[in-house]
């Protein structure tokens, strides 16, 4: 029982960065842009967060830097794909390489230093409740914020006029264009905002989860988030569930290690990656026609192309 509470209370903080990245990607993909660069943007966010937070000993400034760096990387991606109509997959891979390379280059000097970050809040008597206390009321502020963001994005996307317009851009850009929506501007904006979320996710990893910068610390979470988006069928509400599932699996690994059980640790570390693969298989079984996928995902739009 103690093990389960311990495990469950660690889950939200593993789920939050995945959720933030997935939200960013949903915003991207709902506008029709497939951004595979999440891993790179998260790496930049994590490093920017770490550098600024160390320099000013202010986690808040650090998180702002993470958001800005993610958005900047995304703007490069937007320039390539939305403005110059480059292939979105290649551009995404470029972003990943750029993120890995730049962070390796700039992060040399702060590897391993403990960072000032966001610690768990104390919600007075709520935090002392049995079971729900540690699981729900002993998380850090960013965790609460990320779940709040998910609800807000969902509400905006499905309950507001601008959200509807926005989804139209991904479903049928030529129709949206004919309705007076500036498709190029909308897509660019979606890419930048999505990048900001991915940068935030990276900042979370550095400032609210590990409190340390190590090269390669994103460790495939950007790619897992891309899988998560397919699992969540491009819906922010379902992304919450997906993120909790993946977070629970990731949280399990150090917990099992801590109990001293004799398990092959490297085989256990495969779990998040294998789960992603498994989840994609299950998702494709249930939704073979991909009915929820934005119809124009991955296709560059130019009015003159006559879609």
């Amino acid at each position, binding site marked *: 029982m103690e093990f389960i509470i311990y495990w469950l209370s660690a889950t939200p903080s593993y789920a939050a960065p995945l959720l933030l990245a997935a939200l960013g990607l949903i915003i991207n993909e709902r506008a029709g842009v497939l951004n595979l660069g999440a891993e790179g943007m998260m790496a930049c966010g994590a490093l920017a967060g770490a550098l600024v937070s160390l320099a000013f000993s202010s986690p808040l400034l650090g998180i702002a830097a993470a958001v800005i760096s993610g958005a900047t990387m995304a703007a490069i991606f937007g320039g390539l794909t939305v403005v110059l109509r480059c292939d979105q997959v290649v551009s995404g891979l*470029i972003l990943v390489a750029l993120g890995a*390379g730049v962070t390796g280059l700039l992060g040399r000097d702060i590897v391993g230093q403990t960072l000032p970050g966001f610690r768990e809040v104390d919600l007075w008597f709520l935090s002392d409740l049995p079971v729900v206390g540690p699981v729900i009321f002993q998380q850090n502020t960013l965790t609460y914020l990320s779940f709040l963001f998910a609800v807000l994005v969902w509400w905006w996307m499905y309950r507001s006029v601008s959200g509807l317009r926005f989804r139209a851009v991904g479903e049928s850009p030529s129709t949206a264009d004919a309705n007076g929506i500036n498709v190029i501007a909308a897509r660019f904006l979606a890419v930048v905002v999505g990048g900001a979320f991915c940068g935030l996710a990276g900042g979370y990893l550095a400032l609210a989860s590990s409190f340390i910068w190590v090269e390669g610390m994103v460790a495939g979470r950007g*790619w897992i988030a*891309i*899988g998560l988006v397919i699992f969540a069928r491009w819906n922010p509400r379902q992304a919450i569930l997906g993120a909790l599932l993946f977070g629970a699996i990731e949280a399990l690994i150090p917990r099992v290690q801590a109990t001293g059980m004799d398990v092959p640790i490297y085989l256990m570390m495969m779990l998040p*990656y294998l789960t992603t693969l498994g989840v*994609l298989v299950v998702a494709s079984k249930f939704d073979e026609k991909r009915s929820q996928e934005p119809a124009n995902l991955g296709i560059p739009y*130019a009015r*003159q192309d006559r879609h």
Partner: protein
Amino acid sequence: MSNPFELMPRQYSPFWLKAVCLISGIAIGLALATTLLMLNGVDFKGIVREFVLYSFISNRGLAQTISTATPLLLVGLASAIVLKLRFWNIGIDGQAWLGAIAASGIAIYDVGDPSFRLLIMACAAIIAGAVWVGVPVFLKMRLGVNEVISTLMLTYVAFLVAQHFLYGDWRDPSTSWPVSVTFDESSERLQRIGFGHVHTGVWIALGCASLVSYLMLAHRFGFFLSAIGLSPKGARASGLPVPIVVILTVLIGGGLCGLAGFVVVAGQEYRLTQYVIHDLTFSAILIAFLARFNPIAVVPVSFLVAGLFTAGETLKAFYQLPLSLILVVQAIILGSVISVEFFSAYRVRIKVSGLLNRQINEEQSRQTSQQ
């Protein structure tokens, strides 16, 4: 809404335009990369010295460039043929890892007769690489699972498989590092050919390059492949065996990546370590794009890209710059190459005024009426 630029998709872009775009893309990329290096404290003379003189002309550097180019050539070929099909295999590192693991396993457990040991190691590596990409291609063809994610997830899994062995059964008890025992000198290593570290793996890679070139450029298979790449629907409609060609191509690609893993462990490292495979995937994609997916062009291009790594090693030694810098340089070059392609795909017209626009329209309508 007034957008001053008007884009016209080109129906046909002439060869010279594509060539100009490719060359200027590379030039812009190199200029940006040079700027980046100079910002990091390497002066221009130093850049020329390391990237041109040392990597390609000095004996030591050239030998290192050729031995780095050997696995790069294999993965570049793999990437060139599968990208032609728009199958995004970005798990090249994973397939190479599996190849390296399989080859090491054969060497460590002394499978088979010593005189055939190298051959068995190579075959095991090819099969392992093909199996590792076989799972994603199966999932894609049967269930439509996105291959980008599945190949990449399996890369992480492959690395963890290697870790599992290195921290477990295969660990060399005589050292405190997670490395396997070294391979037997006479039967499990690719021999040096007498030029620095260059080993017989380079002949294997060149042999594969000629084989793949024959398949792609002179054989029916390559024709099918190009047709499917251009339009899968069209290829299916004209009765080409689309699934078989796709599956075979992807498996060949995986086999080549596995072979690259074999070449690294049997020709360079002589053991399995945590660092035998790194950064192959992005290099392979860069090579394929610069070579325009042409297997013959992959040979010189992978040699040039290998030169970047040689220079990176010296920059690391003399300027304390990390190898990740080379990854940034590669990303910049590929980024500028694909952005300049825009000008060969579209004609950009600047709308000066409404009047001029009307004139153009009138001229166009006159032309069409004449036709």
